[in-house]
């Protein structure tokens, strides 16, 4: 029972950064700007939050500056991709590479392989839910997560509402589906694209903060390890619908939790279990695509 509880707790724990990235990427996906830079923005959030907390000793400042910097990166992405009409995939990859490089550059200047906060530890960030904590099993699973974890699950509902029940959501979807008709309605299409990308940047910064500051109070370069790309796979699987995309994100969390928990028993072959999440995601993506195209009889791509 403890084992299952542990896996389910880890499932939520590992799903959060992906879930936040997915929520961030959905609007950009719907606005037809594929945001590959999720990975880089998340890394920037992780890096800046830990760096600023380390330098100033203030966690709050770390949170705020991470969000700010990610918004700036989002602006850069939007400026090059929307205003200058560059190839968004190339821009996204360029941002991913630049962030890794800048983080590496700063780490080198600081002469260390990672930044570790010594005035706080991960346990400080955990919140015990007052009543739920006492329920057996469920309490073990749901209680004791970080603030952003709870925010992220609430955000699923907020994003769903924003996407389907507000003007903003409808406009973003119109811009993505048919730019010309959006223009003919008098919408400022660029404005909605900018907003969609900035919303993504905001959520990615939260993902980064959760990954580095809240969970481990440590930053190592490339600690995001492709989570941004997995989020993109999840978005593809759910075709941009907040609820189904979130479910795929949690599936990834489960895969990751299984790989972590099972590798404890694997001994020398533990590294192989790290492969599970990526393989699971590829398989899921394949199955979803197969189902989607099964009834299409048209030849061609």
């Amino acid at each position, binding site marked *: 029972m403890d084992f299952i509880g542990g896996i389910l707790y880890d499932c939520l724990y590992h799903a959060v950064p992906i879930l936040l990235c997915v929520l961030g990427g959905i609007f950009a996906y719907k606005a037809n700007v594929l945001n590959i830079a999720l990975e880089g923005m998340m890394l920037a959030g992780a890096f800046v939050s830990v760096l600023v907390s380390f330098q100033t000793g203030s966690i709050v400042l770390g949170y705020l500056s991470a969000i700010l910097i990610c918004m700036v990166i989002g602006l850069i992405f939007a400026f*090059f991709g929307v205003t200058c009409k560059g190839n*968004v995939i190339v821009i996204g990859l360029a941002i991913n*590479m630049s962030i890794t490089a800048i983080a590496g550059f700063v780490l080198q200047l600081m002469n260390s392989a990672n930044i570790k906060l010594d005035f706080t530890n991960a346990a400080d960030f955990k919140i015990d839910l007052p009543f739920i904590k006492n329920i057996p099993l469920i309490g073990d699973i749901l209680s004791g997560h970080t603030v952003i974890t709870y925010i992220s699950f609430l955000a699923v509902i907020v994003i769903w509402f924003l996407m389907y029940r507000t003007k903003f959501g409808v406009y973003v979807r119109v811009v993505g589906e048919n730019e010309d008709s959006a223009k003919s309605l008098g919408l400022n299409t660029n404005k909605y694209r900018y907003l969609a990308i900035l919303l993504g940047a905001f959520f990615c910064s939260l993902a980064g903060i959760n990954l580095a500051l809240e969970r481990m109070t440590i930053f190592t370069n490339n600690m995001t390890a492709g989570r941004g*790309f997995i989020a993109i796979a999840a978005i593809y699987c759910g075709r941009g619908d907040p609820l189904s995309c979130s479910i795929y994100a949690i599936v990834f969390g489960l895969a990751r939790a299984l790989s972590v928990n099972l590798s404890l028993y694997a001994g020398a072959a533990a*590294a*192989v279990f790290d492969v599970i999440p990526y393989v699971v995601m*590829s398989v899921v993506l394949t199955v979803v695509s197969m189902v989607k195209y099964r009834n299409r009889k048209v030849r*061609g791509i």
Partner: protein
Amino acid sequence: MTKRKSNYIGPKIINTLLPIGLAFFIGGIIILCIGENPLEAYQIMLGKSLFTVKGFLNTLHYASPLLLTGLAIAITFKANIFNMGVEGQLLLGGFFAGITGASLNLSNSVAEKLICMLVGMTCGVLFALIPAILRAYFHVDEMVVTLMLNYAMIKVLEYLSSGPFREAGSGYVCTPVIHESAMFQRLGIENSRLTMFFFLAFAVLIVMTFVMTKTKLGMEITAIGKNPDFAEATGMRVRRKIIILMCISGGLAGIAGAGHMMSEKFKYTLGFSGTTGLGWDGMLIALLGRHNPIGILLAAIFYSALKTGADNINMYTSVPKEIVEVLQGLIILFLAVQFLDEHFGLKERIMKLKNREEVA
């Protein structure tokens, strides 16, 4: 026709050089911020690796795998397919070429090299085949799959090199050193590191150029890139072409990995392809070279000069060599944007402006 073509070249060159300039400018500001002289740093970085004979030959040596990875990415970009798995394919190719080179000991060194190369190539092809088949038959986005499989491949190789294939006597994680007969020997010109592998890579570049511009396959690939539906409608077998293309791309990446193993590294370590990774560098080269063979050659040499220069910069100044990766990211960022419209020549553009002024 020729006249129009020459008109196109102006904006193309500006569009290629301007990003480099801008990236160096921003890089210069960063160097200023940490209290170093950017001009001096750049001079150290590029001076030795481009303007001395030995340095230049070394630059050529390091450019050889980059030529191939650049080519691997450029040909897929041409068909509007994104093979982002070049890095993984290169690692796999390099790894198994290394294992083959270490376990096989033939007296005929040419045969041994050939076998290692073939093993590397086959591994690259097989690994590229997975996303290719998924893309062609199940409509799975090949970019996402290749990006994710890269991480999976790095993990698998980490396991293989630290587990079953680990060299027992060594203090850090690596595979056994390959036999001498599988190594590309240094040619010894000016005491540089240049090996036959550079000429091999160059030959592959020429062959691929011929394939892409003069054969039916090349033309069809360009057509698919421009409009896949139209290509399908005219009777091209788009699915098969996509698979073939991904296989070529993977094969090139595999050869690059095998060559890097046999001419430079001689054993697989966890940092086999460097910090940005040769596969990712290939993306910069493909973009910088504008998917054009001469462009790729120049871009590979330029980038290789930057990379070899990075070691000098680390030695003679206090600027971390990661500055090169920053520059690389910035160059790609600026390359994604066309500063000038390439469909009009400079002259036509000026004429247009003049006309507008006259009307006003």
